[in-house]
């Protein structure tokens, strides 16, 4: 999946913009998908392919900024805004909400293409992180209750003796559990394990 062709979504109510972008994007090697309204785009099921969204600010019904809010839970799909008449407040709002780029029509093709490039890279990174976390979560799910307790105390920096004292078990037993944890979580060192814990959000 990670190697699938990244998708570039285009939402613009103007047919000239849509079609010209479609050709440009395809020519650049991505897969364009165009929509003439925000609603039509929202009906499209999510993909796990790296992707980005080229979004016109001025749209009928639901405008670009509102659509940006609706899909705030999809950080794997960065947004590039394009607008006929960009003003500072709108730009600021869009950028603060995480937009990659804000381009005023007519824009140069290189600016757009590099923006798309950047957005796709971010999307890929994001997707990779998400994939990794998912596998780590799966591994974590395989730990027994005691192993999770031991892991939690170890990543907090407690010594085996201390962990044993905390949990009311012997140091030997702690060592055994710790070994299991390292193995199951595929951690090469304690530092690695701490990183994994951080990624999983196992709080202290």
């Amino acid at each position, binding site marked *: 999946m990670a190697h699938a062709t990244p998708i570039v979504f285009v939402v613009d109510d*103007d047919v*000239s*913009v849509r*079609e*010209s*972008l479609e*050709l*440009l994007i395809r*020519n*650049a090697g991505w897969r364009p998908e165009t929509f003439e309204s925000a609603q039509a785009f929202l009906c499209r099921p999510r993909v796990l392919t790296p992707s980005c969204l080229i979004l016109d600010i*001025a749209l009928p019904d639901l405008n670009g900024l509102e659509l940006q809010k609706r899909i705030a839970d999809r950080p794997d799909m960065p947004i590039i805004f*394009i607008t*006929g*008449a960009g003003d500072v407040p709108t730009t600021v709002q869009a950028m603060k909400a995480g937009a990659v780029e804000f381009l005023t*029509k*007519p*824009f*140069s*093709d290189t600016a*757009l293409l590099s923006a798309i490039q950047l957005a796709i890279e971010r999307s890929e990174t994001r997707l990779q992180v998400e994939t990794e976390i998912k596998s780590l979560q799966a591994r974590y799910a395989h730990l027994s209750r005691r192993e999770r307790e031991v892991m939690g105390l170890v990543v907090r920096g407690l010594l085996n003796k201390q962990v044993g004292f905390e949990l009311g078990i012997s140091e030997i037993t702690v060592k055994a559990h710790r070994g299991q944890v390292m193995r199951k979580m595929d951690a090469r060192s304690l530092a690695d394990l701490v990183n994994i814990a951080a990624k999983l959000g196992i709080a202290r």
Partner: protein
Amino acid sequence: MTAARDPMIARESTNAEAWLLNLPPTRQQTRWAVAVALCQFAAIALTAPFAGIPLGRMNGFIPAVESVVFVTDLVTSVLLFSQFAAHRLNALLVLACGYLFSALIIIPHALSFPGAFSPVGLPGAGLQTTPWLYWFWHLPFALALLGYGIMSNEKSEPGLARGSSLASIVRSIVLVLALVCGLVLVATAGSAYLPAIFADRTRGIPANVFADYLPPAITILVCLSAFAVLWFRRHSVLDQWLMIVALSVILEVVIVVFVSPKRFDVGFYAGRLFSLLTSTTIMIVLLMETIRLYANVARSNEGKIRRLVDANIIGVIIWDIEGRIIDCNDAFLRMIRYERNDVTNGSLRWTEITPPEWRAADQHRLTDIRASGTIQAFEKEYFRKDGTRVPVLIGAATFDESQDQGVAFIVDLTDRKRDAEALRRSEAFLAKGQTLSQTGTFSWHSRTEKFIWSDELYRIYEFEPGANITFEKIATRYHPEDRAVIAGVAEQVRRGVIDFDYTHRLLMPNGSIKHIHVVAHGSHDKDGQVEYFGGVQDVTQHNLADEALNKARTELAHMARVMSLGALTASIAHEVNQPLSGIITNASTCLRMLGADSPNLDGARETTRRTIRDANRAAEIISRLRALFANQKISTEMVDLNEASREVISLSLRELQTNRVTLRSEFADDLPSIRCDRIQIQQVLLNLIRNATEAMCDVDGRPRQLVIRTAKAASEGVVISVEDSGPGIDPANLERVFDAFYTTKTNGLGIGLSVCRTIVETHGGKLWATAGVSHGTIFQFTLPGVVGRPTNL
């Protein structure tokens, strides 16, 4: 109280108009007089046939009769003297003297009469003394009657001092006494030199014809004259009775001399009785008439007073110092709601119905009233029977004979107090209303040229309350820049305009500025004078709010214009940007396709096609926008441009006033109506007026004048011009001002005039600018009379 004590009645008794001297005789009085005269004639007629019959000598007759005559004549003379003293009529003095003389001369006559007091009469008296005294008695008396008749035409002079009348009376009495003494002397000591009247002392036989008939003839002549004079005057009761007196004197003389010249016969006695009757009658009549007159006057005055008491318009009481109310009228009873019984049984006391806090003051007044007899009207209160209080006004006076009693009048002030209260409240309301609304009122009368100002107006102008207001004083408050407004108003006043409605500013001594709105209306009174009534409202706050509102409105309008233009620009940009964006992207893609290692010719062809398509779309959008402007619907109608201009002017007045621009409109009378879009043309005019006003906002040192003219143009068209006295426009820029987005104003957009030109040209007219004559700029536009199809932009 009685009428006689009333000073009013005393005044009337001294009034000659009301006395029997000037009182015309009533019919009844005339009848009485005629009856008496007839009785006299009848008596003569009855006596005449028997006049010669001797009756024998009665020595007591003459003294008895003449004593009575003496008394009556004396009484009559005293009455007459007193009347003279009252009326100052010399005729009365003469008459009184006549009676006094008559009374006095009787004494020697009686004394000298032979056999009356002594056998030979008065000592030193001769045979002729008595008959001569008789004529010395009757002739002057007759003369006195004549004198009265002649002199009684003079006017009464009651104004003369009483002292001088007394002196006149004394002088007259002395004169009469002297005359009597002189005549007696002549008749006694000088009787030898007098012609003999009687030949025989006892029988009284006539001595000679001359001496016998001359005195009676003269006496009768004088009496007839007196009678005649009185007959022709005959306007008073007294005149009438004096005629009777004259008549009886004549009759007596006739009997004594002609019918029965001898003594002691029937005629002799009858004659003496006549003289007795005459003097008694006149005295009785005088007394009766005088008494009746006084009674009448008294009754009528009493009646008038009674009327006042009984009319019950004011309360009247008779009081005494002990607190009793001796009598009162119903009005007083009603006022204090007591019954008549309360007065008659003496239970009503003025001291007790006086509330305690007034009693001390009453004691002081009692002291005053005892000293002076009267007291000025004062206000106090009484308790009513039900315990409530009644405010009253009281005036009182004591009776002359008793300082302990008096009369008082009482007026109920309840209504007046209530009215006063209502008035006071109404004034308070008005004052409060004026304060709240910051409105003062004034009036000004053209005759007195006096201002009457309300308190609030003094506050608005910040003058000392009650200060004398003059035009000069008001002028000290005028704002220097508004003197032109005031001068205009003054000019209107001179021209007789009576309605005013204007606003101007006041400059207060502390440098603050007030805006006032003056509304006044004048009305002509019957003398043709004008009185103005008006209101002056302090509209400073209101005006400031107005100015702020206007400013806000102007700013808003400007904002709106900017916004709409911004929106329009954005819209145009957006509309054009879309295809433009497509074109650029397509072209870029095309280049990329052609520039690849293996050119994608099909793709390039496709993108090029799309480029063309998008370019066409952009062109379409542009032409659509043009069409949008060009096809703006014009709703045409026949428009009277003078009227349309007036509407615009009235809309702009406030702005003109705020900027102190004076407007002159020169409208052609024969302006043809033009078919056009009224609103659009008005917008053009409004725009030109605004521009002109703004152009003049920095003008100082010369009038900021705006002239709007309408005139006929060629082919039934109309030309409208707007001229300002602003700094003018550089001739090089006169045409540029119509370019869109050209502006000289810091806050202008520069589209107003271009829009104006568009509108005018849409109507088939022209809009252009030229330099003004000395300053400023003239913008003018034409509108053709016969409008064909409006041309598009």
